[in-house]
């Protein structure tokens, strides 16, 4: 890891007077095993590296990157970044981050146990996952994919303004996509397990979840259209919360693309809703000690009891807004720092999902949504997504339903949250899921 920082420092040392230079250097090792019909379908082992260089002079920024740490390439990237800045529009707020005195929260995100795991053991987990999924229920007709994947990633950021940061993380992930069949009809279901080391993974739970989610959809019908109470399961709520979090980026606000731009301090959601972005929670799959500019990440309360508390910022949007960075610069080596949430979660309630469902006479439990990229307009707030799930009748889960959409606006939905479950669960995305009851959504079916 110090090797990455050395490379970043070497690049920063090439700065001419009057120039700010930032180098981001990353390295990743990945393994991916896919099992199919009792055999290894594919096994990928890979190491990759990359570098991104920003050069700023007179308020103009230039950027270039390369997917290698080859010394010749570094020189070329530096030259390109320097050349590119000449074409940018000068901007008084364009500047690199400077150390802000906030110390990174020490977290144990790197586990040697993952590095020590043999390829054979990884292969065995993928094979076990497929076998257990197939045997979980007689109606499972196949497993489209059963996969083990892991990554060991390290990164370093150095700047002429004094930033020196490094971070490293391990992660591993099991996922199964099951096919269930009955009477010529096929349904699908997804199950997964994630962690930082192999011991965190639960093969049986992932297999059981994929089997349960696919078989319970057999016999699904198209529901009638109408306004209905809808329950989001954690997988679904996390996807929506990620979108809500995106509307709270300082950049979206400053560029007139956030529907919450003028609403700081106002009530924008139901009072039971408190939303926090906390990459310093080690339970979050996306936890990290430092952000894309090398500043410490921190806990940011976005909504408190339904009131809009803050937007998230990187150092540039913070300067523009006359505030300080919230440690929310997000990027890869191939892009300049954007602004975004990293690990949002709703503060959970104290009732179990079953308890919440028992109070609903007529509604829908949504277990999957589709078309979030095509049916959600985060600027206007309109959303409409494909959905599948189970009917709720008299407080009990009833027949499966599919081929319908659920629609509302982001603004209305946040106010329509009527209950929050106690089942907070971190997922392989920038948000945690929790069961959410939405008092009214429009269901379009038959």
């Amino acid at each position, binding site marked *: 890891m110090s090797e990455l920082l050395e490379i970043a420092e070497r690049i920063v040392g090439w700065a001419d007077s009057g120039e700010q230079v930032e180098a981001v250097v990353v390295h990743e090792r990945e393994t991916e095993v896919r099992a199919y019909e009792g055999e290894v379908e594919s096994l990928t082992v890979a190491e990759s590296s990359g570098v991104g260089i920003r050069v700023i002079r007179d308020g103009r920024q230039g950027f270039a990157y390369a997917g290698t740490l080859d010394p010749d390439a570094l020189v070329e990237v530096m030259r390109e970044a320097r050349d590119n800045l000449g074409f940018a529009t000068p901007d008084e707020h364009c500047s690199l981050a400077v150390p802000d005195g906030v110390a990174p929260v020490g977290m144990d995100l790197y586990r040697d146990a993952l590095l020590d795991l043999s390829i054979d053991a990884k292969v065995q987990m993928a094979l076990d996952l497929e076998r257990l999924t197939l045997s979980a229920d007689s109606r499972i007709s196949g497993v489209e994919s059963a996969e083990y994947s892991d990554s060991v990633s390290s990164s370093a950021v150095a700047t002429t303004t004094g930033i020196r940061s490094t971070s490293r993380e391990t992660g591993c992930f099991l996922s199964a996509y099951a096919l269930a069949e009955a009477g010529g009809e096929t*349904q699908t279901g997804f199950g997964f397990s994630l962690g930082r080391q192999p011991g965190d993974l639960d093969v049986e739970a992932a297999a059981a979840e994929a089997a349960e989610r696919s078989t319970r959809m057999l016999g699904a019908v198209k529901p009638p*259209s109408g306004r209905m109470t809808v329950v989001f399961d954690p997988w679904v709520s996390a996807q929506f919360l990620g979108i809500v979090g995106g509307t709270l980026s300082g950049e979206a606000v400053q560029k007139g693309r956030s529907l919450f731009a003028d609403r700081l301090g106002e009530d924008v959601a139901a009072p039971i809703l408190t939303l926090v972005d906390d990459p310093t929670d080690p339970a979050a799959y996306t936890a990290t000690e430092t952000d894309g500019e090398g500043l410490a990440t921190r806990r940011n309360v976005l909504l408190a009891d339904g009131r809009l508390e803050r937007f998230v910022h990187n150092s540039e949007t913070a300067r523009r807004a006359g505030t300080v960075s919230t440690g929310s610069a997000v990027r890869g080596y*191939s892009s300049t720092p954007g602004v975004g949430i990293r690990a949002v979660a709703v503060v959970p309630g104290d009732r179990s999902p079953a308890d919440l469902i028992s109070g609903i006479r007529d509604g829908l439990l949504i277990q999957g949504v589709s*078309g979030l990229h095509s049916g959600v307009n985060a600027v206007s707030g309109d959303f409409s997504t*494909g959905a599948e799930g189970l009917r709720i009748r008299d407080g009990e889960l009833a027949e499966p339903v599919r081929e319908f959409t659920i629609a509302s606006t982001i603004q209305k939905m946040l106010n329509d949250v009527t209950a929050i479950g106690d089942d907070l669960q971190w997922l392989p995305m920038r948000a945690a899921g929790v069961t959410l009851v939405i008092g009214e959504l429009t269901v379009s079916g038959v």
Partner: protein
Amino acid sequence: MTYAVLETMMVQVTDMTGGDGAMLDPQVLLDTLGVAMATGGEFAEVFVEDRRSTSALLDDSRIEELTSGRDRGAGIRVVVGETTGFAHTADLSPAGLRAAATAASAAARSGGSGVRVVALDAMSGPASALVEILPSDVPKARKVALLERADDAARSRDGAITQVTVRYADSQRRIQIANSDGLLTGDRQIRTLFSVSCVASGDSGMQTGRESVGHTIGFELFDRVDVEELAGRAAGRALTKLDAVPAPSGEMPVVVGPGGGGVLFHEACGHGLEADLVAKAASVFAGRRGEVVAASMVSLVDDGTMAGEWGRYGIDDEGRPAQHNVLIRDGVLTDFMWDRLRARKEGRESSGNGRRQSYRHLPMVRMTNTYLEAGDDDPAEILAGTQRGVYVAQLGGGQVNTATGDFVFGMTEAYLIEDGRLTAPIRDGNLIGNGPAALLDIDAIAGDFAMGSPGTCGKDGQGVPVGDGTPTLRVARLTVGGTAA
């Protein structure tokens, strides 16, 4: 609103590797294949890629950045029995390639000793598309100037345009493929893209409008496309939606405008006709070749050879020349799309659909340019014959579950149809349908064929450029996912 298919394509003289000059020496490739096969196996392949890209972004009336990128490396796969071993490296030295070949070979767990030495047979593949103006020959200042022109044009359209984002991007991708069957080939693929996104603000809140154009050609794109006009259309789309009413909710006829419907076919059946999903019985179209799967006027083609189109290439990422593949002819399913691995199992040839996002990925079956052939109906009559429904002028992407056939696609410019006429614009949302049912429910196809906007298709975490096209068409029944009662 769409661009005619470019009909002229100059032919360039190719060298022995079919591409733009050899990237790696054939002997190095041969040695690498030897290492990959040293402990046995049925097949080994070296895929070499060198991609240079430039992108420029204007946002908030500022040129925020100009970015240069370079990605170069090789992916090596070894097939042993049912198992594929894969490794990739950014180190193209003989030692780096040897290490990756050893890793791929070990990953395939090859136990045999069937060492096979192959001679590489340099193949003169189809000519790489010749571009008139290489993007790398164009001064950066000219690229940046396009952005400012588009920004001015969008903002001058109306004071209600409150934000404009303009993006320019070009890439030059050179690939070289050698495999243990003796294949040695290459290609050069150039893409140029321009997009404008606008926000309009009014009493009803904010609305968005987007337009993009992308072709597998060079900077001559801008001799053919007027960026001011493109920006004006993006602005107009956002402005129109300021008066939009909530979309209706429920099943109704849906008319899709020319060029707009490609996404519908991409989702409703395109993915379901990919042989890898078919082989795993994860497609509703598995086992249905030769059967009627669509209305009799439906003929669907996937064609990687369409000159200038976004999904065009000379050879796929396994070295197979792109083809014109008829998927559905007069409603009957004629064939699936194939990559090497799936074709080999079936004892047939690949259809030239083996693609990968980069050298860091394994190839799989992917679409290229997917289009519905023109029909005989009159677009005006299709509209006039629709009592109540929705007209979709621009689609915004989609998603499908190939195992169930359920698919969605978004509408980013759409109108109500009342008494056979377009009336109010409607707000963004998704439509949902079931592929096999929707294909049979198509009851009108017009003659006004047009290609749509450039797209990126995502599958298993890999994105590849794809094109699509349709004439005006009507589906008798789809579910519109709005909020209006």
